[in-house]
């Protein structure tokens, strides 16, 4: 299923987890639990050693995954082994995409080999937090060749020409950053969300809002504000981290993730219901 279609019928719940956190096997169970709980698209983090856009929660998840031996090749095996029927998005940093291929150093046709391998594994698209549209042409070309989507992040500070460039390059969905800063769950949902959504209102791709969404109530409020989907990362990674620290069974943590996913999906649905009533 294409990314855009995942948003078509009802508001989408888009969870994120770092792949391989804390181990390959546990991570498989956790991602499948999110799909069971109602995920419509799943963002799979391929861990990079210098994740400059992440807050402490996801940074630590990435360290656990790297310590557990996660690599780009293991990531693609993971994607192939996953038993879920929702579209999968690979979220990673550009150097891993750029270096992928035979031998030492970047291949001459980078980033094509990475995109080709991702397409074979069943990845539907990419989010690359350190790749602004100015540097994105080579990746956009490779995505076009293999039929993959390239999602861009619109920040509260993104304006003018840059917004237009992104609108031209984006496909799949647009990731609307709810507030400034790095990723991480917060108690409140920013008022900047409304303004950010207004700036991409005329884009013809679905609008998914992320950064700081933690509860079903947050999800409801975001969808009511006009978003087509909610992206949730740190609140889920927190559950994985707590389970790891307390030595919980994989099944117990998976259940918690399934429940949290259901709460967030229900919140999104409630937001849509409220929106259709008021219109």
């Amino acid at each position: 299923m294409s990314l855009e279609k995942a948003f078509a019928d009802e508001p989408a719940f888009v969870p994120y987890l770092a792949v391989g956190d804390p181990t390959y096997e546990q991570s498989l169970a956790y991602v499948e639990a999110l799909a069971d709980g109602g995920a419509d698209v799943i963002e799979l983090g391929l861990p990079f050693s210098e994740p400059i856009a992440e807050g402490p929660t996801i940074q630590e998840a990435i360290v656990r995954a790297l310590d557990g031996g996660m690599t780009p090749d293991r990531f693609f095996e993971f994607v192939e082994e996953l038993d879920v029927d929702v579209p999968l998005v690979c979220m990673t940093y550009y150097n891993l995409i750029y270096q992928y291929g035979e031998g030492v150093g970047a291949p001459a046709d980078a980033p094509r080999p990475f995109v080709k391998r991702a397409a074979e594994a069943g990845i539907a698209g990419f989010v690359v937090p350190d790749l602004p549209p100015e540097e994105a042409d080579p990746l956009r070309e490779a995505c076009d060749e293999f039929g993959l989507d390239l999602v861009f992040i619109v920040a509260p500070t993104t304006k003018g020409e840059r917004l237009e460039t992104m609108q031209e390059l984006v496909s799949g969905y647009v990731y609307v950053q709810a507030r400034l800063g790095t990723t991480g769950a917060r108690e409140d949902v920013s008022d900047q969300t409304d303004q950010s959504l207004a700036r991409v209102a005329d884009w013809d791709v679905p609008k998914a809002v992320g950064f700081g969404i933690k509860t079903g109530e947050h999800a409801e409020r975001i969808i009511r504000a006009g978003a087509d989907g909610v992206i949730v990362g740190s609140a889920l990674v927190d559950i994985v981290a707590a389970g790891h620290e307390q030595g919980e069974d994989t099944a117990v943590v998976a259940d918690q993730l399934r429940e949290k996913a259901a709460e967030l999906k229900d919140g999104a649905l409630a937001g849509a219901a409220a929106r259709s009533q008021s219109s």
Partner: protein
Amino acid sequence: MSTESKFGEYGGQYVPEALMPAIEELTDAYERYVRNNEDGFMDEFRERLADFGGRPMPLQRADQLSARYDTEVYLKREDLLHGGAHKLNNALGQVLLAKYMGKERIIAETGAGQHGTATAMAAAHLDMPCEIYMGETDIARQRPNVFRIRINGAEVNPVTAGRGTLKEAISETMRDWSQSVENTHYVIGSVVGPAPFPAMVRDFQSVISAEAREQIQEKYGDLPDSVLACAGGGSNTMGTFSEFVDDESVGLYAVEAGGSSLAVDENAGVAPNSATLSTGDEGVLHGARTKLLQDTDGQIMESHSISAGLDYAGVGPELAYLVDENRVEAVNIGDDAALTAFHRLSQDEGIIPALETAHAFGYLEQHHDSLGDCVIVNVSGRGDKDLETVIEETENRDLPIAPDMSLFRTLGGGPQ
């Protein structure tokens, strides 16, 4: 010199979207104030460099080294700049620029602590609140600089991620900046990061070569045959080279830290050196495409050097470009030779250099025969901050040149 954002294939702006407006604002300010001296910015910068920093720095003939190597050796004395290293040139320029831009808060990363110290001094001098991010490992091995930063009224935020060195500190400072861009300026400490930082930091540091190029012609009557500078991220390197780049007869040598070995332990993710220009591969780190120490997947390696200031897995994109173009020669010197050179300069010339700087003198000691008749070496910083490391590392080695370190034990002044 140019303000372009790319140097060949290197450079660019690989940063999170939230930072792009700040980068654009900075690019505009750099063009206006630094390149075009709007509102007399550069005049005020030069005046403050003179009155607060003590510029110009002397170019001094090294009499003993000249005799020892049978080569005219001149020392560019950046160690005499206020703060004890070249770092103030850039820190003062950027904090002043932040003021002109109307920013209210300064953040910076630091490795050896020299940039943190310089930024804290500049921020105090210009009355700006300042926070410095520093890796835990570096905090432990650079205690005097941590105290200097605090004493100048700046906060020190310890970074615990990874191995707790410069690259983690840069990542953490970028994270702070991504949520504080509206009122905060990030004073990056080297010619690294997204454009316009590499060109802007080079411009602030180019005062080193602008002065040296005039001074050498006054004192020696000609241009030098070779110019040597140590290279970590590359700010003193680019500052020392930039005005000589167009002088094709002048050989430019970037001396990197060879550490304990140039080999790489891929499984452990460790390169026991920081020889990025000599052994690195092209990739993207901290906002720029440049040469990096990385594994075959593209994960960044933990680098190593006896000197914290050279301990970085990346390098300035313009320097990487000049090496590819064969304008700058990338060479390296290991821990042992750097330590030997540290003692040599201290004993022969009465100048205790920073361990970073000692690498350049290590290269001079080993290769003076092939550097021509006249050599300029940039003394990028003084070594007071490194004395604990030097005592410890000298005791661990059998260096013929080292003073008898047992003195420190008998006096109770050193490690037991």
